[in-house]
């Protein structure tokens, strides 16, 4: 995976989020403040513009500038969380011009660790962690079992989607949805939903 691949990944993530902007906002209306779609779209539009203008020339530089741009343009909870995730991924990517599957998996876990460190959510708190954790675990496990990357990434996506779906019955303990108490149950978490778009984008762009 080279810089071009990562660029394609981020652009595809932006495209998916933009396409689902209203859906994400709808989910955030039910248990939040109706802005997750707008927040992520604003941030990813800025990222795409940055990519067009700056054309970062290493995976690490690309991920770092993506994280910084998200931090500077998203705001809310998702800005620092996605931002931190990309900044940690950039650090994990190191100086390499191209990344192998294993490094990518480590990178994704570093991103998850960043989200955990920044947001202090635990698995089951009904947040983006609930989609990202099973996805990262699945990627590790399937690669360790020798599965080729495209299949492993598909497995990771499916695990993330299951994690996302599993947020529905949960009572939120972190983020804005936690204010609803028991009433947060029965709704899908918006952040977990946008995470599956990040995974889906990886599954389509990084498998080539």
């Amino acid at each position, binding site marked *: 995976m080279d810089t071009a691949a990562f660029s394609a990944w981020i652009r595809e993530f932006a495209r998916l989020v933009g396409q689902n902007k209203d859906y994400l*906002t709808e989910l955030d*209306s*039910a*248990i*939040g*403040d*109706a*802005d997750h*779609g*707008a*927040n992520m779209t*604003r941030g990813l539009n800025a990222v795409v513009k940055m990519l067009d203008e700056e054309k970062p020339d290493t995976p690490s530089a690309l991920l770092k500038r993506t994280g910084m741009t998200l*931090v*500077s*343009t*998203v*705001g*809310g*909870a*998702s*800005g*620092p*969380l996605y931002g931190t995730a990309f900044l940690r991924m950039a650090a994990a990517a190191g100086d390499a011009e191209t990344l192998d599957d294993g490094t990518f998996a480590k990178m994704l876990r570093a991103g998850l660790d960043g989200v955990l460190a*920044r*947001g202090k959510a635990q698995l089951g708190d009904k947040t983006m962690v609930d989609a990202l954790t099973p996805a990262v675990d699945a990627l590790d496990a399937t690669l360790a079992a020798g599965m080729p990357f495209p299949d492993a990434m598909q497995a990771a996506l499916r695990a993330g989607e299951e994690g996302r779906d599993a947020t529905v019955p949960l009572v939120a*303990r*972190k*983020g*804005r949805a*936690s*204010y*609803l*108490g028991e*009433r947060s149950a029965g709704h899908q978490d918006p952040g977990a939903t946008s995470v599956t778009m990040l995974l889906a984008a990886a599954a389509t762009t990084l498998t080539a």
Partner: protein
Amino acid sequence: MKKLINDPANVVSDALRGIAAAHPELRVDHENRIIFRGDAPVQGKVGLISGGGSGHEPLHGGFVGLGMLDAACAGEIFTSPVPDQMAAATKGVDGGAGVLHIVKNYTGDVMNFEMAGELAEAETGVQVATVVTNDDVAVEDSLYTAGRRGVGITVLLEKIAGAAAEERRPLAEVAEVARKVNANGRSMGLALTSCTVPAAGKPTFELSEAEMEVGIGIHGEPGRRRVPMAPANEIAEMLVSPILSDYDFTGGGGVIVFMNGMGATPLIELYVMYNEVANILGKAGIPIARSLVGPYITSLDMAGCSVTLLKADDEILRLWDAPVRTPGLRWGI
């Protein structure tokens, strides 16, 4: 959605231009979306900055000025501002005595301010203290959750801490006063209608003519429970009872009562509500030392109200009465 706006995407920047035009005594950094006191940084004074999502006006930008905030960062509607803004504001108000960050307890606000503090301290070495408001009794107070929201007390805290800073007290003391205000304050709110986020284009939740949402915050998020419409005296009871059960407001120097409108509630209704709240406090033997009635921390076009009580002491009352000169609150000057 019917709003007096040009484009949902430009509401915040257009409003900032309006604020700049209407208040030449303030200075607006449009690029960073920061409203500064015209004379910031004030040398030797602790700088106070706050910020948060837009849509709560006059909070926070309307509270910038002598005796209150030195700067406010405006985020997108209901979305906390980003660290760059807060870091720029921190640098812009640093008069050598350090800077106090006033943060409402929301995951986004806390994380963004945290990152801003790291940035500002790393880049410039300015001393930053942070106070997080979390006065909303509608939300359970727990270590395992996001904790209570910061709502109405933020207005009173910005006034009182602002007055302490104006007295040239050191950062640690100003932060101490701010924490005391937060510790002694409790709020509870209720909505008759949802608000409509401009970018979403439709109400965040639907509420029938016969119902209201109790225990709402200030972001149009649904409340804790939905109950049938009730007369003002019962509504006052629903708001004040949980506040009084959560904290002992007797003794001390009475309370500051803040009867807040959510944005679309006419003042006449707030006075009807204030009367009921005053009756309840009278029966509970809690004297009212000061009061504030009006829409000061709002939720766009939501109809509803919140009650904030702050247990007062001599210091709090002296600082409350001190001169303040901002677009949203002004007296004594």
